[in-house]
């Protein structure tokens, strides 16, 4: 049994994609739900991040091009969030984790088990056996006929 190590997506991907709804260009502010942050469902599809802000966050345009059109509040929000994200971008794997991984790896390198051909199990289907037998019989008949013909 092998895991599908080359799978592009887990089984979750289909379901999670299904949860995505097409984006809308609706702008404006919405009332935030009063329930605690962790209990809320994310209202995906309510567009609050404009194309300009997205272009700025993607690095396609400069901040000065957004400031003139977008509220300073939105820009400041993303700048504040990006300060935290920048710290996350600098994170490195703790040294003990690398050591733990090294310790967990098997000492011997994995190798494919290669056995000589005479030790390998041969599996043949009944149809193949019948076909081979018929072939041998036909060959025998041809050889026999040619011998008798001389």
């Amino acid at each position, binding site marked *: 049994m*092998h*895991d599908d*190590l*080359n*799978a*592009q*997506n*887990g*089984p*979750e*991907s289909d379901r*999670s*994609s299904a*949860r*995505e709804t097409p*984006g809308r260009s609706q702008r404006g502010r919405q009332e*935030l739900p009063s329930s605690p*942050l*962790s209990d*809320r*469902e*994310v*209202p*995906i*599809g*309510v*567009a*609050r*991040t404009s194309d300009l*802000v*997205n272009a700025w966050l*993607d690095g396609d345009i400069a901040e000065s091009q957004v400031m003139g059109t977008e509220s300073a*509040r*939105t820009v400041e*929000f993303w700048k*504040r*969030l*990006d*300060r*935290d*994200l*920048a*710290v*996350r*971008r*600098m*994170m*490195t*794997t*703790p040294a003990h*984790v*690398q050591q*733990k*991984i*090294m310790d*967990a*790896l*098997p000492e011997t390198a*994995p190798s*494919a088990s290669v056995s000589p051909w005479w030790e390998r199990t041969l599996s043949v289907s009944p149809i193949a056996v019948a076909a081979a037998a018929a072939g041998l019989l036909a060959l025998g008949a041809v050889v026999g006929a040619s011998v008798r013909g001389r």
Partner: protein
Amino acid sequence: MLIGRYSDPLYRHALGMTGSPDVAEDILQMSFIKAYQHLAEVRGRFDAWVFRIVANGCKDWLKNIRRTHLSYDEDDQPSGYATPEEDLDRTELRSDLDRALAALAPSLREAFVMKHVEGRSYEEMADLLGTTVGALKMRVHRAREALQVLLEEKYA
């Protein structure tokens, strides 16, 4: 050597996806062991292949668990903030951002983490995930919208 070379972006991905350093460590460890055992099956780039193992490990974990909140310690990580007040603010923001990320659909969270936490380009993301740049831009934009809805009132 391979571990030292590839572990940082993979650790950031696992941490961004799970929000827990312990889980990220476990996923990273299991992924490298799996990669080591199946080295003969590598087709194409090793970094892309091992990334997919880690990404699938994160998705499997997300599938099995519904978290409300997990924060992480970064005692050995750079703070990046000058004053204790800024550090305190940041702790709260970090915690809220973790919760907001946890509320996103896995595909949106994955795209946001790859873009903003791992700092990858859309082309690189498309290459690793086997999808198009346009689809990934859409996912990142939706993730931003959702995060803005969840956090703007408190932090704007």
